């Protein structure tokens, strides 16, 4: 278990030190949310109605940007060989890496969302459910995205390919994430069912995705 914790700590530390990846993702998130109202027009009622969707879709794209490097950094410097050969099960390695991505990238994105919500005239009642839905839903993004990162590790055009492969698989997370926020705008107490389903999706991803990631990584180091 200590090897798991060490790996998690190292990955968070490296992301923090290098800073660039998280900074780029956060900057991208801000840019997308700033550009969209410029295209859609400043109608506050319209913006309020589509705010949950915009915030969630832009968050997904921002998270995808950083997912491409998840295993690449360890492939490039040979660490992946040592991680695969070590006695810690590869599934646990996958969990540690995805969890580190969630902590270091997805959580900051989720915490930035309410600030961007201000720009979109998101009603006050919806801020709690917004952050909640993102904190609960983003593990699915990090873990399902991890599958894509492991699959595209040696692929040409890895980054774009990752988005192409993974965006369809994010549909359930996206729908229930948005549904949670939208229903809270209509009735502040009515987001119960969708947040439960969102939690189920996240839990299932955390349990199942590492199996696929480990299988892919084993093939990648051959």
């Amino acid at each position: 278990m200590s090897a798991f914790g060490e790996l998690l700590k190292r990955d968070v530390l490296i992301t923090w030190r290098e800073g660039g990846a998280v900074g780029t993702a956060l900057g991208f998130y801000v840019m997308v949310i700033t550009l969209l109202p410029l295209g859609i027009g400043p109608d506050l009622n319209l913006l309020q109605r589509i705010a949950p969707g915009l915030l969630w879709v832009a968050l997904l794209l921002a998270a995808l940007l950083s997912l491409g490097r998840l295993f690449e950094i360890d492939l490039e410097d040979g660490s992946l060989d040592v991680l695969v050969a070590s006695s810690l099960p590869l599934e646990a390695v996958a969990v540690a890496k995805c969890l580190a991505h969630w902590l270091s990238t997805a959580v900051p994105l989720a915490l930035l969302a309410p600030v961007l919500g201000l720009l979109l005239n998101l009603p006050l009642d919806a801020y709690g459910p917004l952050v909640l839905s993102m904190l609960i839903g983003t593990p699915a993004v990090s873990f399902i995205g991890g599958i894509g990162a492991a699959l595209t590790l040696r692929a040409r055009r890895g980054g774009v390919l990752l988005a192409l492969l993974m965006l369809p698989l994010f549909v359930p997370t996206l729908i229930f994430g948005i549904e949670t926020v939208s229903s809270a705008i209509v009735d502040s107490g009515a987001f119960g069912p969708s947040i439960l389903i969102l939690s189920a999706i996240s839990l299932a991803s955390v349990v199942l995705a590492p199996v696929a990631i480990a299988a892919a990584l084993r093939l990648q180091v051959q």
Partner: protein
Amino acid sequence: MKLVAEGLVLTRGSRVLVSGLSFAADAGCALLVTGPNGVGKTTLLRALAGLFQATAGTIRLEGAADERSVADESHYFGHLNAVKSSLTVEENAAFWCRYLGGRREQVTTALETFGLMALRDIPAGYLSAGQKRRLGLARMLVAERSIWLLDEPATSLDVASQAVLAAAANTHLAGGGLVIAATHAPLGLTPARELALAGSGARAA
């Protein structure tokens, strides 16, 4: 302790690199895997480390403590150093030490052995190629493993560093360890046996 490989067949795509290779490596004696480029030295070491799946054959450890596999008992040191540029020299060594289950004081010993103590607070990104290589090699010492699998360990090491590596490996051998190294250069390991992989021309036809 003894590492035994029997009837190993290693293939990449439709190319058979090694067919029906059997050998044994005894503790206390280095095994130097030699042969021309592309003959499968790296693939053989990766198969021993459990990274590459052999098409056929078995790799086992005789006389190991409790039925540990070769992969569990090995350090694999490949062409890349497994060093993170944004971590300091000491953080790099300490991470592998804790991850691989070594003891804390082994970090200091390893860094001292490879002459990196003075640089320990410097991010590894600043190191020269040779210093990075030494930091990579320090991983062999931060946690105990009875088998060292070294793939061209002398690359980008100067003469003095090669001597340090040879000394470290010889100490490991003297302590009853096992070293299997793929190499072009004589590494100065004693005692050593050679396993020459011939370009057998074995192909999938």
